[in-house]
């Protein structure tokens, strides 16, 4: 009995493993959840900050989304706000590079973006999940038009240099064949009574019906060449009109070839909570959000201002700063309270008198490496030649991602695509190159997927986040251990100082984390102010 149970259990485990993507997808999801990546926004509307005594001042460090949300709401509640910003523009990592823009990274490497009018790349955040309600609410308040961001495109590619001789495969094909073969296996196991111990006879009938539908199986529960499979994976010759109208069915790949290609590892990205349909992007670039906030807060943001030191006492907060265009001449700004949104990568280097646990937290979190590369081409060949409209191609090459623009579809002019979105070791190595070399690498690697690159490439820009003068890294890489030890300490109101930003959230790297952390912190400071103003 025991032996038979063990055998049954093995069968089920094997099947689960096959059904799974389980290994890749679920493990990744679990890891992401641990990192905070899969958390939904708790946003339930902007806080109502009523009853603040007049004349209370708040100094906000950083005009990124966290800082500007804080300034916007506090000013509306009657506070006197002032914002100090290192860059000459609002937005921080909310940023769009367009033709005519210049960007100088650390080391003095300057790029002049030569994209055509209306074309752009978002070096930082580039997509807004539908459940990032706080950010969406501010887009509505600030009249920022949104359009759909295409994440999953069945006609885009999955690519690995060592799979199918390096020939990219359509997402549609791998998805259909992977599912079809799994459905067939599970149907066979059901018909051979191998699931009798787990699934009742009635349920087995339903299971078989569902497998036929889910996997596009034929009447014999086989995944085989025919109209069912072609309608999922595509035809050898698609149906048309007239004399040559008759379609030809395509031949599914063998299960072995699908499995050993490992291309299935790219099937589940669009099923992760953050990437589920619908996603959005602001029309004209993600930077439209920062720009709109900047316009609203024009009178209170001081640009080109580098924070040198932050000091608090019983009476308030004093921040020393200097004009980045005239360094050496230190000035000060004072306020009753300070909300600091400076990334920890930089704040850890600035003298600040907060409690030892908070100071330790500020210095404890490393920042992720990430590189994004925008490439302009003379024509939208991915649409014209390959029928790819928006969406993402995934590859194991160092560029990792090619994303086709989710706007300007079917246009006649030039086009800009995201030619690389690297992280980890690939990002370190791209960061270590000159911007020109990064662009060249993206063109070299991308040519393996789109041979048109060689002919159609026009110009490009590359942003390596560790070389960004205003962040020194992409985002805070929390681990379970770091969160247990430091997160609570980081998020306290320490005397008259509190921190906000994606680093003070469970939505790291997401704009929603910055926005919700700002709303949380202004609510807590407001409560203290209303309760008596003493820190």
């Amino acid at each position, binding site marked *: 009995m025991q032996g038979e149970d063990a055998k049954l259990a093995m069968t089920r485990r094997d099947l689960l493993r096959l059904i799974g993507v389980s290994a890749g997808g679920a493990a990744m999801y679990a890891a992401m959840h641990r990192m905070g990546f899969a958390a939904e926004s708790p946003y339930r509307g902007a806080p109502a900050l009523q009853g603040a005594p007049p004349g209370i001042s708040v100094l906000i460090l950083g005009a990124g989304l966290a800082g500007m949300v804080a300034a916007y709401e506090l000013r509306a509640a009657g506070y006197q706000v002032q914002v100090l910003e290192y860059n000459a523009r609002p937005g921080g990592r909310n940023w769009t590079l367009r033709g005519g823009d210049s960007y100088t990274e*650390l080391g003095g490497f300057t790029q002049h973006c030569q994209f055509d009018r209306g074309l752009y790349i978002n070096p930082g955040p580039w997509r807004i999940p539908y459940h990032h309600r706080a950010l969406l609410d501010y887009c509505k308040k600030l009249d920022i038009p949104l359009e759909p961001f295409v994440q999953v495109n069945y006609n885009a590619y999955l690519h690995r240099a060592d799979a199918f001789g390096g020939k990219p495969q359509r997402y549609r094909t791998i998805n259909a064949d992977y599912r079809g073969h799994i459905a067939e296996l599970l149907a066979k196991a059901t018909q051979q009574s191998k699931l009798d111990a787990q699934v009742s006879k009635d349920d087995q009938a339903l299971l078989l019906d569902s497998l036929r539908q889910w996997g596009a199986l034929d009447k014999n529960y086989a995944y085989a060449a025919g109209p069912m499979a072609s309608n999922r994976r595509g035809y050898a010759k698609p149906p048309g009109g007239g004399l040559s109208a008759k379609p030809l069915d395509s031949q599914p790949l063998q299960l072995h070839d699908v499995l050993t290609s490992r291309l299935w590892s790219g099937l589940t990205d669009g099923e992760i909570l953050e990437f589920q349909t619908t996603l959005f992007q602001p029309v004209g670039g993600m930077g439209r959000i920062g720009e709109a906030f900047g316009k609203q807060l024009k009178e209170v943001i001081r640009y080109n201002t580098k924070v040198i030191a932050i000091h608090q006492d019983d009476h308030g907060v004093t921040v020393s700063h200097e004009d980045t265009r005239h360094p050496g001449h230190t000035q000060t700004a004072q306020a009753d309270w300070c909300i600091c949104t400076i990334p920890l*990568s930089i704040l*850890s280097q600035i003298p600040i008198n907060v409690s030892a646990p908070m100071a330790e937290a500020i210095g404890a979190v490393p920042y992720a490496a990430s590189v994004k590369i925008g490439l302009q081409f003379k024509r939208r060949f991915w649409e014209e030649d390959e029928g790819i409209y928006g969406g993402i191609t995934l590859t194991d090459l160092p560029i990792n991602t090619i994303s086709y623009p989710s706007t300007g579809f079917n246009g006649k002019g030039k086009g800009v695509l995201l030619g690389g979105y690297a992280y980890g070791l690939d*990002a370190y190595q791209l960061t*270590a190159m000159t911007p020109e070399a990064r662009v060249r690498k993206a063109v070299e*690697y991308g040519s*393996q997927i789109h041979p048109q690159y060689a002919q159609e490439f026009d*110009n490009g820009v590359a942003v390596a986040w560790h070389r960004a003068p205003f962040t020194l890294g992409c985002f805070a890489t929390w681990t379970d251990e770091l969160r247990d030890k430091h997160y609570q300490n980081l998020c306290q109101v320490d005397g008259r100082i509190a921190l906000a930003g994606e680093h003070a959230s469970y939505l790291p790297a997401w704009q929603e984390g910055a926005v919700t952390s700002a709303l949380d912190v202004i609510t807590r400071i407001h409560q203290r102010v209303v309760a008596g103003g003493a820190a």
Partner: protein
Amino acid sequence: MKRLSAIALLLLACTPFACAQTSGQTFYTYASLTHANGEEIFHAICQGCHMPDAKGAIGAGAYPALTGNPKLASPQYMAAVILFGRHDMPSFVMKPSDHKNFFEDAKLSDAQIADVINYVRTHLGNHYINSITAAEVTAMHPQYMATKP
């Protein structure tokens, strides 16, 4: 570079952009990085922040120079920074990872950490005579690492 097909190389050679300069850099994978020496590691990773001339950089914050920096007098200090990280700089220590995430950091062996330290301290305008060994780096691991079989 080695993955690039001959055809793509040929085609690229014809574009004006590619003719301007060849990058000549190898892309390491997590596997092939284990064979990189100190000099190669410096150019593939360290110079991203510390800059190709090792002079560091200053923006809203700063990356320290790895040339003419008195802290380089102690190879143990350098090893500690690479092993444990410092502020925004991640740890490069080889540690068992229970979860693979998409921003997984580069990992260096103790021999590689020693080698990159010795490279930096004898190049890039630095002329230190003493060096550090892989065993000395190993000895600096926290207890939980050292007791692992």
